[in-house]
């Protein structure tokens, strides 16, 4: 059993370790290590295509995480007062959203968006009041942010709700009893209490979007996020530069995940 578990872990992590290791390779071969160097990181960061993709990724991740956190928190709050069958239905939908494979979400979102765009664009063109050509709805930033935001929202709802469930209901009553209006109670008691959950949800939403390749691949249109850039570069062979990018993405993601976990743990203690 031990050996089996060990084998699984090795199988999972050795390739990742190799990527990280070879990103520090002084030579340009992906198969033999020729001394330590950070030159590939410099190369990657001075590559305008990489920087473009990084900017796109960061913009999309930040926007979708903000939206997901905002709407996810509001949804979690609203779900507090939903009871019975309706509650069960909502819960099921949220968990399904998290469990549906990315490729299904990607394809479904793509089809849905294209259908809607095809339907809306002629209408938009017809009612456009100005002389120049009407703007066309296309895949791009908007669809990326929407798809990522929607998916990450489910994550945020789950995390924030877990945090709310752990919160002492009598705190809200105590606040009202002491004269705070419902909004005052939300601002001064509920929000500080669930803030660790919100922050952790934000970080997870950001990480999810920053890492995601599958959904982005379908809905990115002409935009290139970092994972898409890596994917298309690999077709020209794996270079240490790609390894460096991969290692950086990995590093950022791990950092954010650890931070999210730490926030939730700390919050649990202080809450």
């Amino acid at each position: 059993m031990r050996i089996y578990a060990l084998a699984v872990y090795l199988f999972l992590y050795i390739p990742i370790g190799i990527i990280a290791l070879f990103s520090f390779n002084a030579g340009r071969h992906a198969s033999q290590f020729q001394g330590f160097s950070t030159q590939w990181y410099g190369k990657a960061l001075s590559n305008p295509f990489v920087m473009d993709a990084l900017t796109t990724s960061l913009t999309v991740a930040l926007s979708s995480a903000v939206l997901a956190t905002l709407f996810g928190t509001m949804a979690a709050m609203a779900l507090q007062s939903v009871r019975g069958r309706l509650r069960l239905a909502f819960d099921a939908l949220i968990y399904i959203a998290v469990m549906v494979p990315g490729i299904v979400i990607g394809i479904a979102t793509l089809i849905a968006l294209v259908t809607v765009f095809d339907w809306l664009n002629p209408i938009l063109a017809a009612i456009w009041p100005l002389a120049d050509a009407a703007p066309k709805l296309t895949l791009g930033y908007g669809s990326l942010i929407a798809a990522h935001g929607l998916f990450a929202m489910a994550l945020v709802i789950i995390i924030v709700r877990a945090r709310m469930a752990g919160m002492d209901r009598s705190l809200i009553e105590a606040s009202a009893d002491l004269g705070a209006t419902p909004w005052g109670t939300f601002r001064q008691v509920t929000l500080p209490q669930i803030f660790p959950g919100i922050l952790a949800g934000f970080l997870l939403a950001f990480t999810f979007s920053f890492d995601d390749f599958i959904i982005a691949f379908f809905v990115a249109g002409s935009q290139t996020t970092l994972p898409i850039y890596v994917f298309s570069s690999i077709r020209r062979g794996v270079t240490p530069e790609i390894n460096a990018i991969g290692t950086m993405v990995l590093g950022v993601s791990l950092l954010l995940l650890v931070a999210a976990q730490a926030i939730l743990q700390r919050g649990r203690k202080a809450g």
Partner: protein
Amino acid sequence: MESNLKPFSETQAAPIAELRGASKHYGAVVAAEGLNLAIRRGEFLSFLGPSGCGKTTALRMLAGFETPTSGDILLDGQRVNDVPPHQRPVNMVFQHYALFPHLTVAQNIGYGLRQRRPRPPETEIARAVDQALETVRMPGFGPRRIWEMSGGQQQRVALARAIVNQPKLLLLDEPMAALDKKLRREMQIELQTLQRQLGITFILVTHDQEEALSMSDRICIMRGGRIVQVGSPRELYDRPTTRYVADFVGKSNFFAGKVTKVAAGRTELAVAAGRQIAGVAPVDIAVGQTATASLRPEQIALSRETAGQTVPVEVINRIFLGEHTEYLVRNIDLGDFLVLVSRQAEASEGGFEPGDQAFASWTDGAALILSDD
């Protein structure tokens, strides 16, 4: 708040709060039914009753967390059924204190003042907070975090957080349930002192009869969502109207029987084996009804010789209680009952040992004849 709108004509005698036929149903569950109670200005009133009898529900209707299904809640003569909790000049000390963990002790206590509009200046809030900490004997604790304090200290902070607002009613829902026995006794005395000192009307919920008896001006005894009897501890002890109250307040011996005779101020009850117990019925009772005679252990005397209306008993057990000795005695017809003998009486009569034969007696009218509900 609404107190500012009230005319000055209101007299000291008008109740500060009232429940008028207040009922609360949760679907088929009747949590409170037709509660009628006028709460006097400045009194210390306790709701006493077993678990699930509706004490918390009554308190929460006063605080505004529950809206009565029917009936009215009045504060200072005004109907407040539809006034939300944050607009009621009433504060509550929660059972588990419900202190805000993300705020310091001082911020917790100042919370209520900061909600006022216009908001008082910070210096004024700080002064009020310091004074409240002083009142609960915790000066200098302001900067502490909530989890750095013991249960007793948290309890005091919760109290300070409520009294700093000078509420018309201070509601306390089993505030001492989480404290150990010694600390509870201390807090009881402190709470009582505080109430006298502040003159705020206190309403305490408890299922500890000793606590209610020792602290309250009046006790409201509840059962199954209804009020059974309201009165001072002495009234409830001396003149319970039902067996339930006699049983709940202090110790008593009960002898079940059937009413045989009702005359002015004297009701007779036939208990086991043709024995009669005569007593006073606080509530009218008809001949033929089943009833219970209640006799407090200290109203029964124990002697070696028979004199007047006595029953022969055998001493079964003896418990030394300091100033008193409690005997468990047995009569063939009446069964086992308790007798409390004072040190004085024992000195003149001599002590009794288990196995001794003796005579138990009580004065006419000592027994209460109570209906069974």
